[in-house]
């Protein structure tokens, strides 16, 4: 297993507040990793840095076999090299149909001219149908995404992530607002993806994390507090202290 993403000693401050403090993180491909931590531990900021939304003050973010630095790239370029992100609050294009949402996400050339002359091929159509079946939205393809339920929007966003076909998936609270059955489906889907992709899941729900059966990284105050199996980290004195208070 080679490392796909190597984050080394990054720190970032907002107005004097250290959101990320000398954080290092490595994930290989294929691999599944859960990131947990109390509110304000820096989980979302960490994702912001990897996806290029926030620039760290210090440290390095390296990508792939060549160890290319992601820090010099724009958000769009980072997405193009293969980093996909699902947001905590489902963000889909509410004005547009489910089908259109999936179509713009499909892995195809991203330039304006290519988009102008883009034709929907049989392969595209088949891929969209396949994803729609996977996310349970086959019957809703023509409906505007805005009228979907919260859970369905979550699914649609996961579908958009699948359509993008990234190598690394950053998934922020995928199970929020989902029923028990949907959670199980999500777990199964993420596990399947993790057989060929790198998947980082940020989650609050410990039961959900347990079902992912993967390595867990615990963040606290912007640094890694503990790393290992869920049982291992939950047995850690410091983790208990952070989670349960002293």
């Amino acid at each position: 297993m080679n490392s796909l993403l190597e984050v080394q000693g990054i720190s970032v401050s907002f107005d004097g507040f250290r959101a990320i403090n000398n954080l290092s993180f490595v994930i290989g491909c294929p691999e599944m990793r859960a990131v947990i931590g109390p509110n304000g531990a820096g989980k979302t900021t960490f994702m912001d840095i990897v996806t290029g939304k926030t620039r760290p003050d210090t440290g390095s973010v390296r990508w792939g076999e060549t160890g290319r630095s992601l820090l010099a790239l724009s958000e769009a370029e980072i997405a193009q090299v293969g980093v996909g992100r699902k947001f905590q609050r489902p963000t889909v294009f509410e004005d547009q149909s489910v089908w259109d949402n999936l179509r713009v996400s499909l892995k195809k050339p991203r330039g304006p001219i290519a988009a102008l002359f883009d034709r929907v091929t049989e392969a595209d159509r088949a891929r969209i149908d396949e994803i729609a079946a996977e996310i349970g939205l086959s019957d809703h393809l023509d409906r505007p995404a805005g009228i979907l339920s919260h859970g369905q929007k979550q699914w649609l966003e996961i579908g958009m992530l699948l359509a993008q076909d990234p190598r690394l998936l950053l998934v922020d609270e995928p199970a929020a607002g989902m029923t028990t059955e949907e959670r199980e489906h999500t777990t199964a889907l993420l596990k399947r993806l993790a057989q060929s992709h790198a998947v980082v899941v940020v989650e609050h729900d410990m039961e959900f994390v347990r079902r992912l059966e993967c390595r867990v990284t615990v963040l606290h105050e912007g640094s890694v507090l503990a790393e290992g199996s869920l049982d291992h980290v939950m047995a850690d004195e410091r983790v208990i202290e952070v989670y349960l208070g002293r």
Partner: protein
Amino acid sequence: MERSIFARNPSVPIFIGVLTLLALGVTVMSEAYGTGAISVSFTKVLGMTLCLCLAALAMDLVWGYCGILSLGHFAFFGLGGYGIGMWLMTARTEDVVRANLMGGVIPPTEAEVSDATAAQIFSVVGATDWPWMWAASGSLVLSLLLVVLVPGVLALVFGWLAFRSRVTGVYLSILTQAMTLALSLYLFQNDTGLRGNNGLSGLQNIPGLDTVGQDRISIWFFWASAAALGLAYVGAVWLVSGKFGNIIRGIRDDEQRVRFLGYRVEAYKLFVFTLSGVICGIAGALYYPQAGIVNPDEIAPIASIYLAVWVAIGGRGRLYGAVIGAAAVSLLSTYFTGGRAPDIDLGIYTIEWVDWWPVLLGLGFVLVTLFAPKGLGGLVDYIVRKDRA
């Protein structure tokens, strides 16, 4: 799901149909080719209105679809007018000068004609030489190129600087206002080579068409304006109905999300902004020969704000809405401010519509915002849906 763009967009055949009927109707009632029920000056008003609709269409692309509230698009419109105006004025003045000089014993040399033409055009600002920016004014083809290139390059450079720095929302609107204000103030100066506040005039006289009356020229321009609007409408519908349209609407609603999908938002914004600038330039080039004069006042900041008001009243994000809004509001404006509306004498106070028109427009804007938030075009949607149900 992949049907022809006409089947997916029933507004296209309807729009083209209405435009064709309008063109036929106006022709049949024109002085040159029909009953004469529509005067030459009103034909020009109608043709100019179509040009304003074209500008509104461009505004809707950039604002209604891509979410960039530009309050400077009339700068592009005015530049289109200046571009074609330089050729119209040069060629026309040259004809006049040549005719005058022909009276002499020795035929005038080209240099004499050129000098005399320049003297004629620029005497009003106390100059006699050709300014550098008139270099292309001798050639129609080059001037037409200027009509497209000057607004296009200005939009490209301005857009590149603004979008690259991620200036958005109200800050961008303010910058575009500053752009059009700066351009307007620049053109007001006498030594810029574009005749200062006199602007370019006599543009209704088309060189080489001296023997053709304004009655026919006005109809020709009306046709050309209608054709340009029709073409642009079809093009704009094509642009927004494909994947490109999905992406720019995505940028309007959540540009960060579009970035994380791997699209370079700035490139898309720049594309739409520049394209709409070019469309505005073409609209201006068709408008000012009908208006007869273009001066720096035309690109004062308020003009671009009106353009946004038309689109807002017509309904953003639906191309026919922009056209309906521009047509309705600018025709009403002509009616009330052109002295056509009879003043109302209330005894103690006389309502003079010229003064009250802005109030009326403001009220209309408020009413539309309150009762038809999707604009007049949204009303059309509402009626069509109701019929179907």
